[in-house]
């Protein structure tokens, strides 16, 4: 569809991870919250790199345990730790054990989006070094994943290390939908929820179809939210308008940024939302800042928190 999107997704590697999820549930490592789809067996060689293998005892069959690295954006690490833990919980319940490489800090997006390539480059190189040992990297931020997948070319001209890592970096929702093929989420959230479609996830990762493109509609975040018991999705009048965060834009264009945010909030309120959610905490940080200042009756929660079954 778009050349901004890489050719990753439901390839052979998918089944192996899903299989693992099934097995893990069977072993009782995690509450049996979901059932992965029927899976094809192992076969053929895939792009997945098997660095650590371990047998799964209860199955009696040797399995390959992919190493999943957790990529927690710097501002989530520092300001929203629970979004990180919600991510860990969602994944662990699905049988995925994650590692958090402590050397990680930031993907370099703030520098890159300001045009400061030289300041961003060492962070991009670090990112690849830190995460290349993993079979998959999962991150609760579409924007940071978009930075890695859609904008790192600038720093790695045909570098095989980056080319190998690139298709293995996933935003949380696309990992759940495309790789784990989650089709059940027995958590409850009896509230009216407005999904704010964070732009980079939407238009650079194609987590959903944007309202501008004339394609069959799809939306991975929505697909997951619809699995949550009691959750009622509301439809804002403008389905995917930007909230106005935009990184340094939020500060350098303060007036426009805040007006954009106010407009999104008003739209979600008129649609009847009690909770606004998104695949990016950065959008929500901006929106929540406006909501709290104006004392609006709206809560902001990251989608990982809803998927993990956090209460309001």
């Amino acid at each position, binding site marked *: 569809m778009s050349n901004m999107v890489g050719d990753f997704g439901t390839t052979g590697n998918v089944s192996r991870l899903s299989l693992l999820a099934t097995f893990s549930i069977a072993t009782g490592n995690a509450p049996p919250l979901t059932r992965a789809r029927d899976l094809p067996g192992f076969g053929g060689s895939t792009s997945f790199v098997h660095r650590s293998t371990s047998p799964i005892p209860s199955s009696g069959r040797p399995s390959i345990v992919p190493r999943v690295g957790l990529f*927690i954006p*710097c501002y989530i*690490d*520092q*300001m*929203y*730790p629970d979004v*990180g*833990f919600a991510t860990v919980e969602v994944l662990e319940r699905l049988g995925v054990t994650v590692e*958090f490489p*402590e*050397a990680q*800090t*930031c993907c*370099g997006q*703030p*520098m890159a*989006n*300001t*045009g*400061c*390539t030289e*300041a961003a480059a060492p*962070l991009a190189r670090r990112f690849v070094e830190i995460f290349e040992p993993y079979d998959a990297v999962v991150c609760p931020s579409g924007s940071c994943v978009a930075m890695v997948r859609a*904008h790192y070319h600038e720093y790695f001209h045909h570098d095989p290390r980056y080319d190998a890592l690139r298709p293995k970096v996933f935003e949380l929702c696309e990992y759940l939908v495309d790789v784990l093929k989650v089709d059940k989420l027995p958590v409850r959230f009896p509230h009216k929820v407005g999904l704010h479609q964070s*732009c*980079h996830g*939407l*238009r650079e990762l194609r987590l959903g179809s*944007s*309202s*501008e*493109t*004339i*394609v069959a509609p799809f939306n991975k975040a929505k697909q997951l939210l619809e699995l949550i018991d009691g959750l009622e999705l509301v439809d804002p009048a*403008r389905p*995917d*308008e*930007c909230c106005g*965060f935009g*990184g*340094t*834009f*939020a*500060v*350098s*264009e*303060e*007036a*426009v*940024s*805040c*007006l*954009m*945010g106010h*407009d999104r909030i008003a739209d979600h309120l008129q649609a009847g939302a009690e909770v606004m959610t998104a695949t990016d905490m950065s959008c929500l*940080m*901006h929106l929540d*800042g406006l909501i709290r*200042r104006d004392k609006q009756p709206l809560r902001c929660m990251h989608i990982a928190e809803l998927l993990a079954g956090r209460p309001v």
Partner: protein
Amino acid sequence: MTGHPTRAAEFIALPQRAAWHDQSLWFVRAKRDKAAKAIPEWESLRDAAAAIKAHTVANLADYLEEFERNAKKLGAVVHWARDAAEHNAIVLKILSDHNVKRVVKSKSMLTEECHLNPHLEAAGIEVVDTDLGERIVQLANERPSHIVLPCIHKKKEEIGELFHEHLGTDAGASDPQYLTEAARGHLRDRFLKAGAGLTGVNFAIAETGGFVVCTNEGNADLGVSLPPIHIACMGIEKLIPKAAELGVFLRLLARSATGQAITTYSSHFHGPRAGCELHIVLVDNGRSTVLGQDDFRRSLNCIRCGACMNTCPVYRRSGGHSYNATVPGPIGSILEPARDPAKHASLPHACSLCGSCSDVCPVKINIHEQLLIWRRELVKKGLLPLTKRWAMSIGSAVLQRPWLYQMVGGMGRMALKLLPRFLVYSRLNPWGKQRELPTPPKQSFRDQFKARHGK
């Protein structure tokens, strides 16, 4: 940063006006969506348009020569202008040679780009913009705030006052039907008195030597069908190889621009009227330089539909004039810095990088990516404020050292907790002007993760 943010803040200072402007343009965007959805093959049409443009610019010199050859065969006079000054001089000379004192002009962003009107006016020639919206901004002594809807920023009451003053309409009258009728009468007179008609060009066809001009009002056709001289001004990127390819572009243009299936008039000019003259001015004015830039070449695909403006959440809320540019909005923020990076240094940053413009663009220009690349160019040219560059360098230095990052993060959270509100929400903190900062947690994710996982 001065520039766009300051002018945008001025526009937003009248919140009702900004909301009205936003809604007017969103309405156009919604019409575009409806029109595009009526065409199941929309996305493949966009692909086709982009492919035709890529092929054309790869062979542009050949197509320009072919166009010139065929246009001359049909009896047109073809002129070449390297820059705006040469373009203006050529037009003035044609008019002076025929002792023309009154010119009617239909919409042409190129002549705006070249600032043709003041050049002709200085030589004592009356230039009347005949597109209703352009006539309105001309009377108001402003520039168009949008390339398709030149006076979208103006309320009908303001237009009523303007017409009362200049056209003698009733005081206080602001009914669009009434005002349009008044303009019709006023401009008919100008059409009948004009000694030459000027138009832009939407598409020029190499294979035939002809060109197409699209309007809804019929002003281009009236303007060039009465006087004996037609001058058509076009950028060299307006070329397409074959007439059949007009099908692709005409289907995209109006649907993207206003949500119409096609403009009312799509006029195909091949040669002059009997006994009359047709002059075609081919203008470079920086386009051949952009052609040589891999990162920005695709901006030459632009067919000036304005869809990126209608969809841009920043443009809609900051108004076209906040860009202080001939072409405002997303595509203008690429085209204008190419001409004068220092003057337009704030434009590539007048963007939240939402990418809506790239998705809406009928010729698939990667607009938001080019804006990002422009930000890098600005740093290279030393046009990003030093404070910002330092901040980014320091940020990078911290983020390359996990221990330092952890320490700074911890100190930041602590400071947010301990500092009194008036210090945190001071004037030095634009974030806090209308927004609260997040409530800092005691511990970072990594601290807690380590504790929980016993590592």
